[in-house]
């Protein structure tokens, strides 16, 4: 048995560092956080006032206010005149995907936030160029709001996944991918999440489309590997052996080698071609999940060609 020091040395050796995607995501989070005002110290608690309303009266008041707001929201669109469709212009060539509303105060899509004095790092100054400009959405009734940022959409998807609301998570990820500049740091991660989510929702076509796109476009090796792995799970059975073989060629040290080798061996129907794969699996992973099946096939699949 190893000593405490030997085991702690293993902990030192094994500790992973951040990858590029994590570095970029953390930096974006830091930018966002430091652009917000620092949380103020909690004020001293005021002396508790004497109770004026009973709890029941407060509940009734809140319920009445909620009903009044709902009625107002329902009536307003039917009473107020509907403005003409807003004119949305294509962005200038240096700001892809950033529509600008003509004649509004949002002509300049990225109004820099106020500087923060001596410690003045601002979101805009620290932001990567791809994240600097925020889209403007004009609603049916003429009000304008900023489109959610990449981080907002990602957070929304996270929150939806946490409450197991798969359609909402999917919608947020789809909006993120459709609207964010392709170089934004979280787009690749969102694409992988969307592919996995689509598979969970049994939409193999979408899963395949996004896994394929990510496997061919991302520059992040860990994401490329994860996308390729997912792709091999969603392609048709007739393509799985070739997909797994390509995976094994591209990522020979992946922790998913056992699974991919099993996939390739299981989907290689020609016994002569399958035997070396089955033998390789049994030799490398004698306790693997596919080992028993591989042994069986080795015993029965005979190769007659020399």
């Amino acid at each position, binding site marked *: *048995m*190893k000593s*405490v*020091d030997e*085991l*702690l*040395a*293993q*902990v*030192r*050796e*094994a*500790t*992973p*560092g*951040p990858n590029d995607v*994590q*570095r970029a*995501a*953390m*930096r974006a*989070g*830091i930018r966002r*956080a*430091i652009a917000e005002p*620092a949380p103020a110290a909690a004020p001293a608690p005021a002396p508790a006032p004497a109770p004026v309303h009973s709890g029941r009266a407060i509940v009734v008041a809140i319920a009445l206010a909620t009903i009044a707001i709902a009625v107002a929201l329902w009536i307003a669109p039917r009473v107020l005149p509907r403005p003409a469709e807003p004119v949305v212009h294509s962005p200038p060539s240096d700001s892809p995907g950033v529509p600008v509303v003509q004649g509004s105060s949002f002509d300049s899509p990225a109004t820099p936030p106020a*500087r923060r*004095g*001596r*410690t*003045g*790092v*601002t979101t805009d*100054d*620290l932001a990567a160029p791809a994240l600097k400009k925020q889209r403007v959405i004009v609603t049916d009734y003429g009000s304008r709001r900023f489109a959610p940022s990449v981080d907002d959409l990602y957070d929304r998807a996270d929150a939806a996944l946490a409450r197991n609301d798969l359609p909402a998570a999917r919608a947020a990820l789809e909006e993120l991918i459709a609207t964010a500049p392709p170089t934004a740091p979280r787009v690749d991660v969102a694409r992988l999440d969307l592919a996995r989510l689509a598979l969970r929702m049994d939409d193999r076509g979408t899963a395949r489309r996004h896994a394929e796109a990510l496997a061919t476009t991302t520059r992040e090796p860990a994401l490329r590997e994860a996308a390729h792995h997912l792709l091999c799970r969603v392609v048709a059975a007739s393509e799985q052996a070739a997909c797994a073989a390509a995976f094994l060629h591209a990522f020979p*040290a992946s*922790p998913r*080698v056992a699974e991919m080798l099993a996939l390739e061996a299981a989907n290689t129907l020609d016994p002569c071609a399958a035997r070396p794969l089955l033998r390789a699996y049994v030799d*490398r*992973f004698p306790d693997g999940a596919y080992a028993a099946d591989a042994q069986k096939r080795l015993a029965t699949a005979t190769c007659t060609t020399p």
Partner: protein
Amino acid sequence: MSATPAPRADEPSDETLVAAVLDGDDRAFDRLYARHVDRVFRLIARVLGPGGDVEDSTQDTFVRAFRALPTFRGDARWSTFLHRIAVRTAIDHARRRRDVPSGDALEAWLPPSLPEADRAQFRDELAQVWRALARLPAERRAGLILVAVEGMSYAEAAELLESTPDAVKHQVMRVREHLRRALAKGGA
């Protein structure tokens, strides 16, 4: 100790960059982040263990450090100032979660260069040591990690833990003993 690499001779020191941030040079904090993020991430990962909220804690650390910049007096190195915040942040996060790491979380800790034949044993040993460490209060675990994993002296660890070298030494000895007994029982 795997210290943050010192800046090259033609690069400004941390303290120069801190002064630049305080003077309104917005890019300087970005450079401090780029220089220290890997070191801080690993330090936090070691205190939290596999499956911990390492990204959130690292992010919190830099935000807290940025907000605390005006209080940096320059009587210690900025990296010490930052690492003290990192340890405090990791301890705060660790107090919220004391899960035993899952198999997937451990998998992410296996060095890619590890031969396939050794992976299962390495994973089992990591699981064993983290099962034992996860039962310790976060501050004690941090003390052991700083000394036995990060390779700091008791004085350096005490500075980060805002304690005394003697207290840290005593604590680390007791934690080692706890760990030795727990591992002898199979990490239970």
